[in-house]
């Protein structure tokens, strides 16, 4: 969250009135920092609730070990595979996974990096996109 000067001022005034006569510059600074941290957590957490589900799409020439490499990396990152659907069309491999990254210590950016290295190794394409984009495009 971005902090405006007004917001910082507001938090400082709050902190001073809460501390009352104990308000020393250090104490005020500490309390304001705490407030900023806690107010920061809130929108992040809220965002994560809706941003837990990610769609992973992979396609390319079929080789052995695509599913296992991807799922091993996901399990290592503590991602939950909610659904998986895979097809071979001619020699073309296509897989779509819906994964839940809420409990993962990694965010979508980290996972994209991990998948990038796997994609290079297996010579397939792997895309990770947040679920919302599919919901917005295909559901009214």
């Amino acid at each position, binding site marked *: *969250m*971005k902090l*405006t*000067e007004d917001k910082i001022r507001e938090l400082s005034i709050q902190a001073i009135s809460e501390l009352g006569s104990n308000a020393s510059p250090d104490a005020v600074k500490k309390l304001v920092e705490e407030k900023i941290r806690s107010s920061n957590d809130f929108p992040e957490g809220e*965002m994560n609730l809706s*941003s837990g589900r990610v*769609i992973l*799409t992979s396609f390319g020439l079929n080789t052995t070990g695509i599913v296992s490499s991807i799922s091993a990396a996901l399990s290592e990152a503590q991602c939950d595979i909610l*659904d998986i*659907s895979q*097809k071979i069309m001619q020699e073309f491999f*296509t897989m*779509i996974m*819906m994964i839940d990254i809420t409990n993962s210590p990694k965010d*979508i*950016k980290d996972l*994209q990096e991990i998948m990038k290295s796997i994609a290079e190794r297996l010579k397939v*394409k792997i*895309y*990770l*996109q*947040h679920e*919302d*984009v*599919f919901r*917005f*495009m*295909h559901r009214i």
Partner: protein
Amino acid sequence: MPYEFDEILETIKMTEIEHFDIRTVTMGISLRDCADRNISITTQKIYEKILRYAGNHVKNAQEIERRYGISIANKRVSVTPISIIGDAFGQEEFLKIAETLDKVATEIGIDYIAGYSALVQKGFTKGELELIKSIPKALSQTQKVCSSVNVASTKAGINMDAVNLMSNIIKETAEKTKERDSVGCAKLVVFCNAVEDNPFVAGAFHGISEPEVTLNVGISGPGVVLDAIKNAGGIDFQKLSELIKKTMFKITRAGELIGRKVAEKNNVPFGIVDISLAPTPAEGDSIADILIAMGVEDVGAPGTTAALAMLNDAVKKAGLMASSSVGGMSGAFIPVSEDAGMIRAVEKGHLSLEKLEAMTAVCSVGLDMVAVPGNTSAETLAGIMADEFAIGMINDKTTAVRIIPAVGKSVGDYVDYGGLLGRAPIMPVRELSSKAFVLRGGKIPAPIRSLTN
């Protein structure tokens, strides 16, 4: 799985193969509280305010790009028309503001900052006149600053004095940036019925009825529409319209999602989605190619205007359904230099300035990124603009002229800017004089259409 296999693949195909991207996320920032009698205080306030709101604009937009796998081509900022906040200033002071805008834009890493503008459809204030006179210098001394001047509207008519002034300003801007193919003119738009929440440069500004800060998004995606039409084959017009609508619906929804998320991340309110179909110079990302896929042999063939009208209408209908906050220009763009198909049509001699003008009557936004010979007279430019604004004024729509009289170039030459601005062949201009007409001066009165009450 809550989504069909095909639905997911369709989205991937759009983003990865068909060049679907968000053209721009533009943060509009009001600078009205930055006005001060002292120029250094004014520039300081402007600098700080833009930094405060848009400091993380690029970083936040990039994060959203990654999360949704949809790229955002440009990150921009638009500001209150500078003539309004600096009405007491002279040219030198306005130039300082332009420098400040350029400096802060470079620092925060955005692509363009727009709003070095004036709204003079009914007449000039002293400050507006000074700002307009400073435009050639401002655009030649800065990289990212874009300028626009509104000289006509349905309510006020056409301010022909402003048209004549602007034709000279355009010539002067071309001259001042002649060593770079007159690139200054690519950053200068003259408008009729300018809109206040347009996210597209060079014509963007943060209108006076807009809130403190807002985030507007402009979508793109001609490539997606093109592929859909190509795959559909020879279906009839109703079915074709339906197909375009379905495709645009999805694009607009994605645009709204991205806009809202970038706004959320920046902690500013979301404004509008501009549902214009904006091309890029990339092959396949072209409005011209859509028209050809619809069945005309090339842009400029009889039927082109009808095809464009239908495309534009279908785009709007789909966009309206998909988003609750549609605004800006919202129509198909036909900039010549930014569209590979349009460039080709001009090269082959299929597309003339006159046909282009007719096309602008049914779409947004006007004669856009058109290069003409450097020896085109100011009066002829004024005539071209007057024609374009007459279309806008009478039809109650936005029209604009972004024309480049490329110094030292003639028909057969090119101007080449690279990037999103692209390259344009110099188009021939009719050598009949408009001088005695445009130099009458004064205003063309507002049309009967302005009396709607």
